[in-house]
């Protein structure tokens, strides 16, 4: 067994939570984000597909999901960054016996701002669970569990999973979720009912290329300034919606492949999204052996390759759907992990990259947090005060990067 290291981050430090196929790691650095300390592994030997940091209500609580090959899947939490962790007597995320379902994995943890006691988790087989008491007890969202489409949702390569949960920041009753396969669904009534929202999203692997549902959506992110604007990385296809998922349009012009898994939104800047294109669903490695993050800063109108510090030869890498995140600082940090166990980070919004850690087990989850920062960050708006201020100082965004 490897020796377990612990970290003791201070208020204001940045956390990068890394879930791997052999346990969880917690990396921390000060706001410069140049020197990192590594804690872990926790849940040694087990896949950890979901992690989150709950800093709401003054908490300092890490959550992670252990998928023990033998002993089942369960949530643990730690209030001291991993030094001690809960060992639940009874597992908290469980299907009711009458559902006939058994929990295979927990793919996603989502902590909505403005609802400090609420946590959502997305699981395999595809189901949304909710806790209204900060993670102590959980129940399936009945409207999703009983959805009439359920029998027609089928497993993708990773299993039949609900892997993406995107609350609406201005309306607690609205939420987007995404499943592989199944596609995007939205509720407008707090989870009582769910409507498929896949119009314009291609299903290359089905006879009907644009079905109501059944798409293999890999990740959806929301624009920080315009909450009705969403971006979607599909199993073949890159899309944007300007009406909270009602319609999707192709924005894959200027990328080497429209196949990919990971997608992360900028925490403040509107229209800014990061992806890592992957070559084909058979090959599933970075095109041309080059590890490139692509960024759009105009809502998918164009894309630029971000490569400084990333290997551009013989880099046959795969970055999975939850293995990319941004932090909430300014300038924003961007982080991603590879299936080959390398964690890269940028402390300048993608302009340059640093290999933070290598030799980790296959990375399946990368999430971030700022210690003690329980306040949601404010988005910037085009033409808003931030931009005017930057222009006045002569340090506009373009020159800054």
């Amino acid at each position, binding site marked *: 067994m490897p020796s377990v290291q612990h970290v003791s981050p201070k208020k204001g430090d940045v956390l990068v939570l890394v879930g791997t196929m052999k346990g969880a790691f917690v990396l921390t650095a000060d706001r410069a984000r140049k020197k990192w300390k590594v804690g872990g592994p926790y849940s040694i030997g087990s896949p950890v597909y979901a992690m989150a940091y709950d800093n709401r209500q003054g908490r300092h609580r890490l959550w992670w999901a252990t998928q023990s*090959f*033998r*002993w*089942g899947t*369960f949530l643990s939490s730690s209030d001291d960054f991993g030094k001690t962790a809960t*060992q*639940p*007597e*009874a*597992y908290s995320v*469980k*299907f*009711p*016996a009458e*559902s*006939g*379902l*058994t*929990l295979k994995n927990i793919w996603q943890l989502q902590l909505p701002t403005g609802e400090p006691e609420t946590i959502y988790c997305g699981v395999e087989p595809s189901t949304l669970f909710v806790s209204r008491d900060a993670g102590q007890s959980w129940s399936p969202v009945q409207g999703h569990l009983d959805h009439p489409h359920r029998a027609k949702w089928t497993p993708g390569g990773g299993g039949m999973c609900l892997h993406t949960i995107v609350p609406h920041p201005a309306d607690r009753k609205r939420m987007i979720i995404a499943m592989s396969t199944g596609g995007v669904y939205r509720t407008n009534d707090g989870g009582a009912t769910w409507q498929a929202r896949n119009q314009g999203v291609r299903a290359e692997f089905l006879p009907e290329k644009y079905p109501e549902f059944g798409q293999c959506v890999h990740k959806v992110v929301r624009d920080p300034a315009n909450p009705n604007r969403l971006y979607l990385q599909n199993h073949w296809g890159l899309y944007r919606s300007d009406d909270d998922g009602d319609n999707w349009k192709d924005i894959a012009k200027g990328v080497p492949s429209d196949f990919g898994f990971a997608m992360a939104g900028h925490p403040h800047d509107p229209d800014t999204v990061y992806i890592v294109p992957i070559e084909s669903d058979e090959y599933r490695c970075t095109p041309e052996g080059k590890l490139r993050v692509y960024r759009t800063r105009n809502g998918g109108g164009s894309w630029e390759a971000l490569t400084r510090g990333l290997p551009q030869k013989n880099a046959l890498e795969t970055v999975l759907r939850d293995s990319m995140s941004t932090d909430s600082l300014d300038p924003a940090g961007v982080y991603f992990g590879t299936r080959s166990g390398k964690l890269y980070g940028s402390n300048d919004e993608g302009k340059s990259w640093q290999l933070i850690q290598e030799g980790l087990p296959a990375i399946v989850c990368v999430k971030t947090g700022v210690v003690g920062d329980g306040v949601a960050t404010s988005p910037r708006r085009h033409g808003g005060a931030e931009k005017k201020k930057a222009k006045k100082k002569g340090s506009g965004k373009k020159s800054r990067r």
Partner: protein
Amino acid sequence: MPVIINIPSYLATFAGGQRSVKLASSPATVNEALDALWKLHPALRDRVLDEQNQVRQHINVFVGDESIRFAQGLATPVAEGIEILIVPAVSGG
């Protein structure tokens, strides 16, 4: 003669460190024996059984030398004085 249930080291951490639990009752089946075990050590239940009350896929339960998968499952009879073994299957990656 009491029935004894032997558990692996991982589960012993949820059973006060015991690797062997002696049941005071006389269960007729594996299901009854496990129910008695959960009463003594509730944290063991979800680690061994899933939501459908089935032994998890990568765990084996033996009555004496016989795997219950090749007998009557949880309905496998338990003779007085026999030992039940809960053991992780050879699996993983």
